[in-house]
């Protein structure tokens, strides 16, 4: 019996909720029924299932009826449906692993949600959310980041709440007396023909352990505790040599690796001539690229291990999560 498409759509509209209630059914629609691999030409209600199973294995409740109001059904196997939405797109609610950034940067990764004073906040890097110290608390944070098309007018998801200042090596001194003294000594050195010049530099005010910042969502429903392709956070643990790890990032998506070095001291370049030294870092093989900064790093049991912030062609450098939590006063 042939039915026109409006009739079939009408029946689908009446029944699709009940169909989707059945175990295994992940999608419903209207399509040409296929029997034994050949299209029959008959319009049908198509139910997509994760896996086709013999009727005998299914409870009465989970079986898709052969017909609904006289319309034939067809069951096709599609597997688990995954969102194909890009990580650089706008997401509401925004999960961990998607593009984010301060309005003046390109784009980084939204790491995960954590708590500060009981309030849910977004965790990522200083150089993602606070523009490498250049931002002011309260500055707008965009999802997606500006490089991915995020605009202040439409995509503001949060405001910068706090960040840990990065101490750069050889930061030009802002001390007037030091600069004046250096200038005078250099003038003297010039007069006596010495090629050596002094420059007032601010000594490193302590070591860097983290490149971290937090942002407060404008609306708590705009963020999700899920991490793309990882799931939910299941606690926290300390990274150890050889530990298998994984991350979910804006650029390279879901990647896995292992901790190859601990207790690492490393010089990281932030821009031309801008270097910061980090201590007590974790090192892994290549599992990230530009734009993955801010990714949360997990062990195989989804326990939070670190915050990814830097890398080279051969390595990935990760802050220990215990330092990130201690320096920003965070909890899970």
């Amino acid at each position, binding site marked *: 019996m042939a039915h026109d498409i409006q009739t079939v759509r009408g029946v689908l509209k009446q029944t699709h909720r009940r169909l989707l209630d059945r175990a295994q059914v992940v999608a419903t629609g209207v399509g040409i029924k296929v029997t034994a691999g050949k299209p029959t030409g008959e319009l049908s209600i198509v139910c997509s299932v994760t896996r086709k199973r013999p009727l005998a294995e299914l409870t009465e409740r989970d079986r898709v009826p052969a017909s609904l109001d006289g319309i034939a059904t067809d069951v096709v196997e599609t597997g688990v449906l995954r969102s194909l939405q890009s990580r650089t797109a706008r997401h509401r609610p925004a999960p961990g692993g998607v593009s984010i950034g301060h309005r003046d940067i390109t784009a980084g990764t939204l790491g995960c949600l954590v708590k500060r004073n009981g309030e849910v906040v977004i965790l990522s890097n200083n150089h993602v959310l606070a523009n490498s110290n250049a931002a002011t608390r309260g500055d707008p944070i965009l999802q997606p980041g500006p490089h991915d098309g995020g605009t202040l007018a439409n995509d503001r998801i949060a405001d910068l709440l706090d960040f840990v200042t990065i101490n750069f090596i050889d930061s030009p001194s802002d001390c007037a007396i030091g600069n004046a003294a250096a200038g005078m000594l250099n003038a003297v050195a010039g007069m006596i023909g010495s090629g050596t010049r002094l420059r007032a530099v601010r000594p490193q005010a302590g070591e860097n352990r983290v490149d971290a910042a937090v942002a407060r969502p404008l609306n708590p429903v705009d963020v999700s505790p899920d991490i793309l392709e990882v799931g939910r956070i299941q606690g926290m643990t300390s990274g150890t040599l050889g530990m298998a790890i994984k991350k979910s990032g804006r650029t390279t998506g879901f990647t896995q690796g292992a901790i190859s070095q601990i207790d690492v001291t*490393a010089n990281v370049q932030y821009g031309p001539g801008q270097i910061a030294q980090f201590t007590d870092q974790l090192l892994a093989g290549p599992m990230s690229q530009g734009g993955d900064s801010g990714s949360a790093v997990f062990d195989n049991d989804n326990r939070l291990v670190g915050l990814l912030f830097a890398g080279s062609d051969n390595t990935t450098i990760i802050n220990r999560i215990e330092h990130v939590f201690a320096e920003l006063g965070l909890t899970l």
Partner: protein
Amino acid sequence: MRVWLSGALVLLLGMAGSPPAKEPAVPASIQEVKAKHAPALMQLPGVVSVGIGRGPDGRPAIVVGLDRERPETLEQLPRSLDGHPVLSEVVGQPRAQ
């Protein structure tokens, strides 16, 4: 007989060379040794990282990361520090991502 004599000589020289009074009760841990030497190692040309990893034999080692092939720096690297092996690898220049 000759083997025994030279063995005894080595033993005597060894004892003379390391007065037991100055020997630390517990050998320095690799973390302590790394912490002590990292600032000097980081000053060598092309050194971008110093950490604790494992050698091919699976034993803990101090691993020096280089921005590129650096034969002149490799010549300055000790094979071991306070009994802990020192390895090197080219990791490239780490950048904020």
